[in-house]
């Protein structure tokens, strides 16, 4: 999976060591991962690194970053992340996040719009759909969730490398740590903040791209529409024949739409 000349770093924030990957040059872009943790250096990051300084931090409590003992909720996590940006010396950034990373980006943006240059929400959690449901990935378990996550695994270039082999003991341990962290922050209310939709209109001046797999069976595309409607002026891109992981199933198309927004 790893490619490109990224570097591994860490920064101390409130006594916690936060790991992150970094590469590229230009304005800062922070990529926020989903529940699976930091999957090393994605091809999307490599594309973005041609034009941006890309930071890919590991969320506190996920394998690779400490969790301060007081950090328990998604609200805590969002506030703490603004502190992480401060310690990284980043006053204003582009935020790009997938699933809970997208939710995190939206929360940070409504808390501190002045810190966010542009926003990319990729199959993001955070808002409750009116008709459907966000699939309970904890109840479905890892295998059950994986079966739902992709439209067609043949579209995933590194599927075998990522998921098709027996994990090493270290990978198993990292997976258990990541699951525990996700459960800690996202258990109840499950994968959403009831208040977030009321605050999203605050983001009207931030160029925002909402991008979704048309066949996302984890976060229904209805949530993309909720984000799109709530953030005036945002752009909505729905990728056909694509599930919950556009960056794994449709990386080229995703890069194209993301770079279009970021080039404006």
């Amino acid at each position: 999976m790893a490619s490109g000349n990224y570097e591994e770093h860490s920064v101390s924030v409130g006594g916690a060591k936060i790991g992150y990957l970094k590469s590229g040059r230009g304005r800062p872009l922070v990529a926020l991962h989903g529940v699976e943790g930091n999957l090393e250096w994605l091809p999307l990051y490599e594309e973005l690194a041609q034009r941006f300084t890309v930071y890919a931090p590991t969320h506190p409590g996920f394998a690779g970053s400490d969790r301060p003992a007081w950090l328990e909720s998604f609200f805590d996590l969002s506030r703490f992340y603004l502190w992480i940006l401060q310690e990284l010396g980043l006053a204003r950034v582009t935020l790009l996040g997938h699933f809970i990373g997208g939710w995190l980006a939206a929360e940070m943006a409504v808390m501190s719009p002045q810190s966010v240059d542009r926003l990319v929400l990729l199959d993001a959690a955070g808002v409750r759909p009116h008709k459907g449901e966000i699939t309970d990935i904890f109840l479905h378990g890892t295998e059950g969730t994986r079966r739902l996550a992709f439209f067609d695994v043949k579209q995933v270039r590194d599927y075998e490398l990522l998921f098709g082999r027996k994990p090493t003991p270290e990978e198993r341990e990292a997976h258990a740590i990541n699951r525990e962290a996700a459960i800690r922050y996202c258990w109840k209310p499950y994968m959403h903040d009831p208040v977030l939709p009321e605050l999203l209109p605050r983001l009207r001046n931030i160029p925002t791209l909402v991008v979704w797999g048309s066949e996302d069976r984890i976060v229904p595309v209805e949530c993309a529409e909720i984000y799109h409607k709530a953030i005036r002026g945002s752009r909505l891109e729905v990728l056909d024949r694509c599930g919950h992981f556009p960056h794994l199933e449709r990386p080229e198309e995703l890069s194209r739409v993301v770079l279009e927004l970021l080039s404006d």
Partner: protein
Amino acid sequence: MFIMRFTERPYVAYSEEDVRKSFRGSVRLTFPNTHFDPALGADLYNEYLDEYQFSEEVGFDGLMLNEHHNTPTCMGAAMNLEAAILARITKKPRIVLLGNPLPIFENPIRLAEELAEIDMISRGRLVSGFVRGTGIESWATNTNPVHNRERFEEAHDLIVKTWTTPGPFRWEGKHYQFRVVNPFEKPLQRPYPPIWIPGVGSPETLEWSARHHYPYIYLETDPQVTVQMTELYSKAAAEMNYEPGPQNFGYLWRVHVQDTDEKAFEVGKGFLIGNAGVGRVPMPGDFMAPPGYNSREGSKRILDQYKHSLKPDALYGGVDAAGWDAVVESNRVVVGSPKTVIRKIREGLEVLRPGILGLWTNDGTIGHKDTMRCLELMKDEVIPALHEIGKELELPGPFEKAP
């Protein structure tokens, strides 16, 4: 030795196919309640209460109840209600609740009130056990499993303070906050009803129990592992400057008696589909122990504890578990005539040395009639003999010697 009687109060009117068709093929949590018939439930609750009422006559020192949620394997979803009924319809035996799953209570003060009422109605016969609950209890009540142990400990501290500190007082904890803690009704037993902790040997809970001088009741754990777990408890007790004895330990055992060994062997097979459910279909591991339910360190210690001594062929539940012959052979379940059962239990007591013995007399498909016959035989022969053996082996219970 304190001898108590237990049944999980099962519901078995469903098939293995029903279980396999449920979400993730689980008999607990997601097994559809469309399989439950309240008319049959009404009969069963009343039969189970009749059996407990008769258990007083049999000579049991305690009547043990437990609580689980979203499962046909145990109808005790509101255990304290059954306890309140037993408090009123029996006179002598202790009512032993093993236990209330503390983390799932949003209001532990209400629990303290319920337990105080049971203690008063029973005129001071309540034993108030507390548990963390299985992962199923967390799922069923939407309690975040990562906070399970913290909530267990904080709810415990709050309940004990509620029972021991004159109200009103204020509680500002991490998981619980109350501005006026002042329930008017308090338990009859002073300073508060005995607290016992049942479990399957989580090292952190064993050590916590030892630090509080609470008897730890092993729930039919592997005998060899049980001996190791007792060492853990004893080590933690030594740090508190005391030496635990039989009064600090209990052991729950599946024991079924019939007139002959042959009959008991046949009827006892009903145990196989009790706790594991009809078909003994293995449950998803993350249902029983969701991520974060045990700390990473705790998980490793549990694995270490079991890895040398857990014999898969002696495991009780699950499809990969042993056949009935092997289960009986391993003495994880004791079935037989009174004479056989007394001999086998004696052998176990010599090794495990508990001051509290729980007899899980029936489960699964063991019906009311066979259960009543089992209890009659226990009354005449087994219970008197076990009390004598307890004296002979010097196994004082916690009411004979303070834990």
